[in-house]
């Protein structure tokens, strides 16, 4: 808690605005990524205002005929689905579930990964061995098949998806943070903190945790992309939450109704592009922060 408040206090210092703008100018890739995120976040927040129809409403075109496979027009920006639903509204509402899954899963990945990485790296000994062996086991699990099996055994829902992504992705973060902590714990100021009688808990969370925050953020932005991709794949295969409108569910609907051979491009190209650009944004941000953390990789 204390570490969070110190980070917030540091960010609120005068001149931080200039620092942020300087970062954006020096990291064009990262700022494009942040821009894409902000755009999607705005769409998700104002989804009800942007969407032209209720995404679940079955539309009719005169004489009680379902308005299926309508081409793109002024009333339906991207046409309608086989079930007579507005594609554009589904796309807009799909942003919500994509961002929800991505951000919550990334949050839990970062929390679990950082916590286990810190404990493993600082405490060492049997704690380290236990956590790292568990991490080895988790890393050797096949990713998507595991998510499918978990969501099949439980009721398919967004919660189980987020939980299984978080359970599978934390070891990567934990390993990197552990190796960073191994070097940090030998530094002079950690020694000084120990000498002045700080408890291990205080050293870990007050003195070491803020130092590895940028690294955790980097792995968080990668995890967002992974979570969104996993959610899309699982929904596409029919293991997603059937009551939530998501891009993966739209793709599944389009695939099952042979949208490709019917040539209904406006139905499945937009959700695909949305998934790609959101995942790409995460990787762009991670590339930018990678350059800050490991300047040697830059050109």
């Amino acid at each position, binding site marked *: 808690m204390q570490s969070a408040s110190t980070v917030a206090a540091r960010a609120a210092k005068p001149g931080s605005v200039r620092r942020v703008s300087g970062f954006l100018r020096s990291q064009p890739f990262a700022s494009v990524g942040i821009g894409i995120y902000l755009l999607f976040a705005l769409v998700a927040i104002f989804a009800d205002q942007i969407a032209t129809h209720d995404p679940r409403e079955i539309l009719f075109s005169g004489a009680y005929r379902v308005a299926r496979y309508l081409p793109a027009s002024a009333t339906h920006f991207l046409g309608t689905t086989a079930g007579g639903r507005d594609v554009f509204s589904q796309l807009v509402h799909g942003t919500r579930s994509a961002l929800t899954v991505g951000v919550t899963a990334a949050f839990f990945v970062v929390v679990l990964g950082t916590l286990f990485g810190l404990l493993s790296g600082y405490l060492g000994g049997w704690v380290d061995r236990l956590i790292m062996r568990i991490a080895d086991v988790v890393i*050797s699990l096949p990713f*998507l*098949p595991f998510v499918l099996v978990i969501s*099949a055994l439980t009721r398919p829902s967004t919660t189980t998806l987020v939980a299984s992504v978080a359970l599978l992705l934390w070891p990567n973060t934990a390993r990197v943070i552990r190796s960073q902590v191994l070097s940090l714990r030998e530094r002079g100021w950690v020694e000084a903190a120990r000498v002045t009688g700080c408890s291990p808990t205080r050293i870990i969370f007050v003195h070491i945790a803020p130092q590895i925050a940028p690294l955790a953020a980097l792995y968080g932005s990668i995890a967002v992309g992974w979570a969104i991709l996993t959610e899309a794949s699982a929904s596409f*295969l*029919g*293991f997603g939450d059937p009551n939530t409108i998501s891009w993966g569910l739209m793709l599944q609907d389009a*695939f099952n109704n042979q949208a490709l051979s019917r040539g209904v491009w406006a139905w499945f190209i937009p959700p695909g592009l949305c998934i790609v650009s959101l995942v790409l944004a995460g990787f762009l941000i991670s590339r930018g922060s990678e350059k800050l953390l490991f300047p040697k990789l830059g050109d």
Partner: protein
Amino acid sequence: MKLWALIAGNPAPLLDSFSHIILPALALGANSAAIISRLVRATMLEVLNDEFIVMARMKGLSRWAIVMRHAARNALLPVATAFALGLGQSFGGNVVIETVFSWPGLGRVLVSAVQGADYPLAQGAFIMIAGVLVLMNMVADLLYAWLDPRVSVGAKR
């Protein structure tokens, strides 16, 4: 079947199956290709700063010879590892691609078994996928030790 047709002097079925493998293979390989190119870039940058590269430059070798004969050989070491890892992952991780291209693979067996609540089959498929993944991870480690004599397996530290 397809190979028998080739022996019988009819290459058409084999060529036909090649044309059907192009798109799934591209879709499956694009991901690993991107990862491997980032990896090679990172190791290349590292290797090009090494002393033996400076030495080769002092010998007056051309830039091409330095990059291909001296640097690339060392930078390609992690590629072997990444290749083995990617092979293991694509074994079970291509569930979506198998579905899209209606390719009757192990991933689709798993999906249909889970959807049909055929748990013994799902277990078998999952264990098979996990087993290959673990095996390829081990192959990757061993391959790395075999290719790079500086790394040794099971040595005491």
